[in-house]
């Protein structure tokens, strides 16, 4: 599904990604852990082609969806317009537009924010923005969903909601890569966790089989 081979990237002479290689298969949920500045976000951005890398290759079968850490909803469009604007582009037939709208409304309903369809993002709470951002990234029917720090800045209850939301997305068979520094959150949701440190893979553990993944990962932080 996604093959990352020997990817290197540096900013101003500082190596942010240092010979990173791994593969993920369909329906995998991969957690990317690591301290701030370890290269998690950069790796996701390289996969999404928001950044170029210096060497190596990224092969991806299928479309990618991207969820930004700070949501990046379009503030001048309502939640529903945010969802349908991309998919509606170039679709002249009213039928296709209506079906996109129905799909968007169904998605908002699933995420519990259907009453916010006509609201502008500025008046949503953090959790609601997160849901709207998730819905928008799912509207492009991604084969792989890349989530950059989906729980940063959210309170505990909202984080639990996000876990449930992402778990429900996993159940649809969507492959996911989630970058987060929150190890508890990552172990709840991921099948496998890769820990990056100084741009290198410091650990690669099977979160489902490992008995105490959080403690194991914390050891790598401390080393």
């Amino acid at each position, binding site marked *: 599904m996604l093959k990352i081979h020997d990817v290197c990237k540096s900013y101003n002479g500082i190596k942010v990604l240092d010979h990173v290689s791994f593969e993920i298969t369909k329906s995998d949920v991969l957690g990317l852990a690591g301290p701030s500045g370890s290269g998690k976000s950069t790796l996701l951005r390289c996969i999404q082609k*928001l950044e170029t890398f210096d060497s190596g290759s990224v092969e991806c079968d299928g479309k990618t*969806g991207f969820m930004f850490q700070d949501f*990046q909803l*379009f503030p*001048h469009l309502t939640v529903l317009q945010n969802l349908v604007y991309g998919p509606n*582009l170039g679709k002249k037939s009213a039928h296709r537009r209506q079906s996109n709208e129905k799909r968007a409304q169904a998605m908002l309903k699933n995420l519990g924010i259907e009453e916010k369809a006509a*609201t*502008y993002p500025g*008046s949503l709470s953090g959790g609601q923005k997160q849901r709207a951002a998730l819905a928008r990234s799912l509207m492009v029917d991604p084969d792989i969903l890349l989530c950059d720090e989906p729980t940063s800045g959210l309170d505990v209850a909202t984080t639990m909601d996000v876990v449930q939301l992402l778990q429900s997305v996993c159940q649809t068979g969507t492959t996911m890569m989630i970058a987060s520094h929150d190890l508890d959150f990552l172990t709840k949701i991921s099948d496998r966790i890769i820990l990056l440190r100084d741009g290198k893979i410091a650990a690669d553990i099977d979160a489902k089989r490992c008995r105490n993944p959080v403690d194991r990962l914390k050891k790598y932080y401390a080393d």
Partner: protein
Amino acid sequence: MGGVISNCIYLGKGLVFTLELTMGGIIIGLTLGVLLSVLRYCRICVPLVKGWSSVVRGTPLILQLSIIYFSVPGLVGVKLDMLSAGVIAFGLNSSAYMAEIFRSGIESLPKGQFEAAQTLGISNFYMWRDIILPQVVKNILPALVNEVIALLKETTLISVIGGMDVMRRSQIVAAEQFEYFMPLCIAGAYYYCMAMLIEFVGEKIEQRISYAKNP
């Protein structure tokens, strides 16, 4: 009293000319200004845009107006009437300032807005038209209104090439009647009313395009 009214009517005849110059200048200035600010994101166009901005902002408007009205006909063989020369000069001059205003608006948007459009597969044309510029216009509207009011006041320079705008007419009346205060006050009132009208329209547009605060 009769004199004041007849002076008002005589000066009022220049209003249409002043408004034509301002409107023409806004249309050219806005169109070129948006184009120049977007072209700044095309690497090969950057020197051209910077050069244009630098030359236009670094030379007096009265000089630009004189070049367009007096020298261009000699160079290209096309005689320009006063209105066309004025509209072109004020429009080109304003475009450099508007481009800078738009640039500051574009740069104040989070980079993530461009990236979000990219991740949704939105092409550059639609990204600029539907995502970036609507947000930019909302943010820079007060600065744009200022620029339009400045443009209105700068149109008084048209008197240098003999254009019969409100200001020029007030000077003619003053010279004829040896009375400066009244005609200049009438001209001032006309300009003030036009500036207030622009401000009012700006406020209405601002209310219309307002939406909830940025996320």
